[in-house]
């Protein structure tokens, strides 16, 4: 277990014009679970390989427990990694796979045997120890890959999209197991994924990357509720946030924005007072599906809640909810409705807009407008 600091990490590949990593700064506390998330090509795998020492960085430093490891060989860094493809040694049995790193480091035979058994118990793979990786299912291979990482008791664990080769059901199971394992062992983990649900569910903190730049670093709740910019807002959450360009108006009761449905019906919605400086200007309203729902008696008295009737264009039942699509200001907007009160497409539905958690962005800089 160790503390990891990434200080202004830069990486330019040989012959490339653009920097792949443009100065990443992240401090990871001992025992913290950090997920790196972003679309493909955002540099998250490069950053992970840099931490492991499989890529050399062109600027900045990687510090573990106060020691700069940037120039070290991977084997000297005391970091273990779980790969997307598991990367199990195909000619070795599960036992040999787990023991390989221990033997190379010169651990005595008896200790190796004990360590392999400890890890096998921990991950419940004891019956598989003498099998070859090719005889195992995807989920079992995944466990062995984690076992190999756990056996060395390294300072830091790196997970490079470890679940993306599993089918949906197994992925959710393994996700829970990784979380349990982390809660038990409290190890420092950096976990790369492009799946925002994985990032949300596992992480203590999430780092959202785009084009080699850190967009936001925060707890899952912070990243979800108060995204720093349009990119983070659109990346996190499924179905994703809808963005509607609106003008801020002043009325008797305070500030408001006006939305127009597909049938031309208008609805004025209250907005927070911190948008005072934006009166008469255009902003981007970011509204999540759960902010638009069926009327709820308990919320009705809240001044930040408003109701209106809109035509439902499409419904997508997901089981617990129905995602309904309505058109506001010419844009498809998703609403999360209760599956117990079905709405049909083409019908009008009474919808409640909860404006307490909506966010606003500057259309120029695409940054979130913060409350003063």
């Amino acid at each position, binding site marked *: 277990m160790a503390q990891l600091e990434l200080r202004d990490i830069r990486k330019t590949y*040989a012959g490339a014009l653009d920097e792949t990593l443009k100065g990443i700064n992240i401090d990871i506390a001992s025992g913290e679970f950090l997920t790196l998330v972003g679309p493909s090509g955002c540099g998250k795998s490069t950053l992970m390989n840099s931490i492991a020492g499989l890529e050399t960085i062109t600027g900045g430093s990687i510090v573990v427990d106060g020691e700069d490891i940037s120039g070290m060989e*991977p*084997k000297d860094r005391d*970091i273990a990694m779980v*790969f997307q*493809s598991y990367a199990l040694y195909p*000619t070795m049995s599960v036992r040999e796979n787990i023991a390989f*790193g221990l033997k190379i480091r010169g651990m005595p035979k008896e200790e190796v045997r004990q360590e392999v058994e400890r890890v096998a118990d921990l991950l419940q793979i004891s019956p598989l120890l003498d099998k070859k990786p090719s005889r195992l299912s995807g989920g079992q291979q995944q466990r062995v890959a984690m076992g190999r990482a756990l056996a060395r008791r390294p300072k830091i664990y790196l997970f490079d999209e470890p679940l993306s080769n599993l089918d949906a059901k197994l992925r959710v199971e393994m996700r829970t197991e990784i979380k349990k394992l982390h809660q038990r062992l409290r190890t420092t983990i950096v976990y790369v994924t492009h799946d925002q649900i994985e990032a949300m569910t596992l992480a203590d903190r999430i780092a959202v990357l785009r084009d080699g730049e850190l967009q936001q670093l925060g707890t899952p709740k912070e990243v979800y509720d108060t995204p720093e910019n349009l990119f983070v807002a659109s990346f996190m959450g499924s179905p994703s946030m809808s963005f509607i360009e609106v003008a801020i108006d002043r009325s008797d009761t305070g500030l408001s924005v006006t939305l127009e449905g597909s049938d031309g019906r208008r609805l004025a919605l209250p907005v927070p007072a911190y948008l005072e400086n934006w009166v008469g200007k255009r902003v981007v309203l970011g509204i999540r599906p759960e902010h638009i729902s069926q009327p709820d008696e308990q919320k009705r008295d809240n001044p930040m809640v408003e109701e209106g009737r809109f035509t439902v264009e499409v419904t997508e039942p997901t089981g617990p909810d129905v995602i309904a699509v309505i058109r506001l200001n010419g844009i498809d907007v998703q609403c999360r409705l209760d599956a117990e009160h079905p709405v049909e497409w083409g019908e009008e539905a009474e919808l409640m807009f909860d404006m307490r958690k909506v966010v606003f962005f500057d259309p120029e800089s695409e940054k979130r407008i913060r409350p003063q």
Partner: protein
Amino acid sequence: MTDVVRTGFRPSRIAIYGVLLLACLVYLIPLIIMLITSFKTPLDIRTGNLLALPTDWTVVGWTKAWSEACTGVQCNGVSGYFWNSFKMTVPAVLISTLLGAFNGYVLSKWKFKGSDLLFGMLLFGCFVPFQVVLLPMAATLGKLGLANTTTGLVLVHVIYGVAFTTLFFRNYYVAIPDALIKAARLDGAGFFTIFFRILLPLSTPIFMVSLIWQFTQIWNDFLFGVVFASGDSQPITVALNNLVNTSTGVKEYNVDMAAAMIAALPTLVVYIVAGKYFIRGLTAGSVKG
């Protein structure tokens, strides 16, 4: 049911199998003639039909070819040259294959600046005609003091073979995921440990391809043998040529054929023993395991 019957006797099927059988026969006739001739007596050969079976089966041709036939001035058969060929082929095959494996490992998993260019240039080695290098190679071997020795021949074949073996191994290793190498590096394995513990155990199919290819090439080589070896160090291909060209009275076709069979046997045996790996190795990577 009727469908099955119809498929079995369709005229197109018969035509296909007929053509295949004919091609097979055309391909095999030389071998058949060689084999049956080698077991005939000289009289049988003179009076009988080329394709007829021997009237008296005899191994005289084989024993004479092995230990008595004249290759130039000496009349000790081809046995000595047969072993010469082994002494040349086995080390040359092993060394070129191991070097190729190592080159392939570096060129696929430890790429450096210009490694792709180097590989491209190495490929040219596959296309350089033998004749082009004869004179410079002769001069080099002379300077090294290896002229007319088996060691010299081994060296020539290793140099020529490395281009091919590198190509085989490099293309085989490219298909092996890099993550495996990364995982081993994080596990603490170094350059050689990764090669010997991770990659080599995975290389059986391509090893077989390389072994068969190199064995066939080197064993069957005539040009280098005739140019860079003389007298006692000559390989069997050269001895066979000398044997056939040495005439003392009547031409003994049975001895010639037996000697040719002896010269061809090792490559046949290698292919029969390791042939299934050859096919498997050539198609490795094209189908996901």
